[in-house]
């Protein structure tokens, strides 16, 4: 087990390198010259070359990658072409905002999904199951942005209960856990929770009804356990798989909240990516993609390790 953990952590290095390379190449494969976005359309070629040299864009690709990687490792993610200031600080605060939104929405979704899925699984084939499953399918099928806008219309425009845009009073981007801020979190996190809730419901339902139909459940009933005792066994059997699904959903939400962040003007990585794409701000695009991808890699590792730790059926050396 110990060697497995060490080995898995060491594996992170080549994976991260590959991820960085892809992030780096991504923007060079994309059509269009990033310089065009930085200079006025009628800039003389000499000036263009100067700018190009200033950003290192005149070097051969491998050299550019080396330089870029060396800086990234030291925490220097470059400067934004548009804002002209270091990306790292902005990205850090955006990541924190996205993290808050993704975790709130994700955990809400997981909670709903486990409860709905657990009940539907235990009562499989009954009307309770059909209602819950129908709700879950509807949740997965509803488009994010549409649901977000409907909620804005109902709760912000018509009822005037909750703010529609931003992450804090007066457009502040610094998060705090007080009501003034939390009320901004409610609509986007509910919008965001719907898809993971639906997916987790379906997974947990399948898992629970699968476990409930296994032979050992008959043994447990036969030795006189009450319902609560049996549910305890079901939970512990389902936990490793549910955990993997949860990890995947949270990771998806970190990168997948672009639409929701855009609808609610939430100052996170999704909005940052969105802006960077439209403004062709290559370094920002690169840095944001890289951070999200690395987060994905690390989360996968954590899920895998926890799963290994709690599931005695998995033997890894």
């Amino acid at each position, binding site marked *: 087990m110990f060697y497995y953990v060490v080995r898995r952590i060491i594996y992170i290095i080549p994976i991260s390198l590959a991820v960085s390379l892809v992030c780096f190449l991504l923007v060079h494969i994309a059509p269009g010259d990033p310089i065009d976005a930085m200079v006025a359309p009628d800039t003389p070629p000499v000036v263009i070359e100067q700018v190009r040299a200033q950003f290192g864009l005149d070097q051969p690709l491998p050299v550019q990658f080396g330089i870029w990687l060396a800086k990234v490792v030291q925490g220097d993610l470059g400067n934004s072409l548009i804002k002209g200031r270091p990306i790292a600080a902005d990205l850090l605060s955006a990541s924190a905002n996205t993290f808050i939104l993704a975790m709130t929405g994700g955990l809400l979704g997981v909670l709903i999904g486990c409860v709905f899925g657990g009940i539907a699984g235990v009562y499989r084939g009954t009307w309770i199951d059909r209602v819950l499953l129908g709700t879950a399918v509807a949740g997965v099928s509803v488009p994010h942005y549409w649901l977000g806008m409907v909620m804005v219309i109902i709760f912000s425009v018509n009822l005037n209960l909750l703010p529609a845009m931003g992450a804090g009073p007066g457009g502040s981007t610094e998060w705090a856990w007080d009501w003034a801020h939390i009320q901004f979190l409610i609509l986007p996190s509910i919008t965001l929770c719907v898809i993971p809730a639906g997916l987790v419901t379906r997974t947990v339902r399948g898992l629970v009804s699968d476990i409930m139909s*296994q*032979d*050992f459940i*008959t*043994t*447990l*009933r*036969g*030795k*006189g*356990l*009450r319902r609560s*005792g049996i549910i305890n*066994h079901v939970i*512990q*059997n389902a936990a490793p798989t549910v955990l993997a699904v949860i990890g995947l959903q949270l990771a998806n939400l970190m990168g997948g909240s672009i639409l929701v962040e855009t609808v609610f003007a939430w100052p996170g990585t999704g909005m940052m990516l969105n802006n960077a794409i439209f403004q062709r701000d290559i370094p920002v695009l690169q840095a944001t993609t890289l951070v999200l991808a690395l987060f994905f890699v690390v989360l996968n590792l954590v899920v895998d390790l926890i799963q290994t730790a709690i*599931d*005695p*059926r998995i033997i890894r050396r």
Partner: protein
Amino acid sequence: MNETVSQTRTGDYLVRARDLNVAFVSREATVNAVNGIDLDLAFGEVLCILGESGSGKSVTLRALMRLNPKGKTVMSGELSVAGHDMMALPDSMLTSVRGREVSMIFQEPMTALDPVFTIGRQIGETIVRHEGISRREAEQRALDLLELVQIPSAKRRLSAYPHELSGGLRQRAMIAMAISCRPKLLLADEPTTALDATVQIQILLLLRRLQQELGMGVIFVTHDLGVAGEIADRIAVMYAGRMVEQASVTDFITRPLHPYAQGLMGATVHSGMRGHRLTTIPGSPPDLRLPISGCAFAARCPHVVNACRAALPPFRHPEPGRAVRCVRFEEAA
């Protein structure tokens, strides 16, 4: 074994079933898995139920502790186990009878044990449930039980998971769990079928020893006549959800009366048959989704007459302690 099938005083019996029926109802069909069984078991007696696949042996066994899937199972008749009227027992009390007064071991110890709980915890859990002692004390009891069922290096095995044990050890652990609260009745559903021959014998010997030491009544389901002869006091033969014959083990083995029981004997390898030809019973058992009138075995019986199809033959008692549901057993014998 000294009771007769016709005896009726409930108090003397560990198990007493009268006209027990079990049906599985779903939207598509109703399966009449058990059709009017009468069964008596004295304290400390060992009964073997024989019968081919699908004859309702497992369903009968589960019915004795009302363990068939709730919701789709319809039971009727009279059933008393260890003095409890099982048909009237509310669920809350049923869970106190299960595992404490009646417990069950299964054919496949791999799937019958929870894969993510240690052996020690699964055994301890039963004791904690019924005797309300601490988990720590229960672990100690579990250790004693593993030693009782002769699991080598028992202490280490307490913290093992089912997949870390061999089939034979798993079945021993399963037995330890089943006897952990010293039940009066042990139900064993083909507990040796999934094991290889040498292990089968060890498990059988273990069960016989425990039965004698603890004085449990045992109902043991098997396909194997040899196993039945080894362990049983009395044998009951099932066909299509009905009992067709009950007899003491020696009576049965020397002279089975029902044509189906004779067929079973003919299809089994055993020492008395040396030099004889093995035979099979032609045809297949009836579809339990359809109503059966008359003797269910009539379609396959070499001695069939019209009376067999007309009405269900009543039990005949050719000698004390023996019962056979056949109108022509005298001719067939």
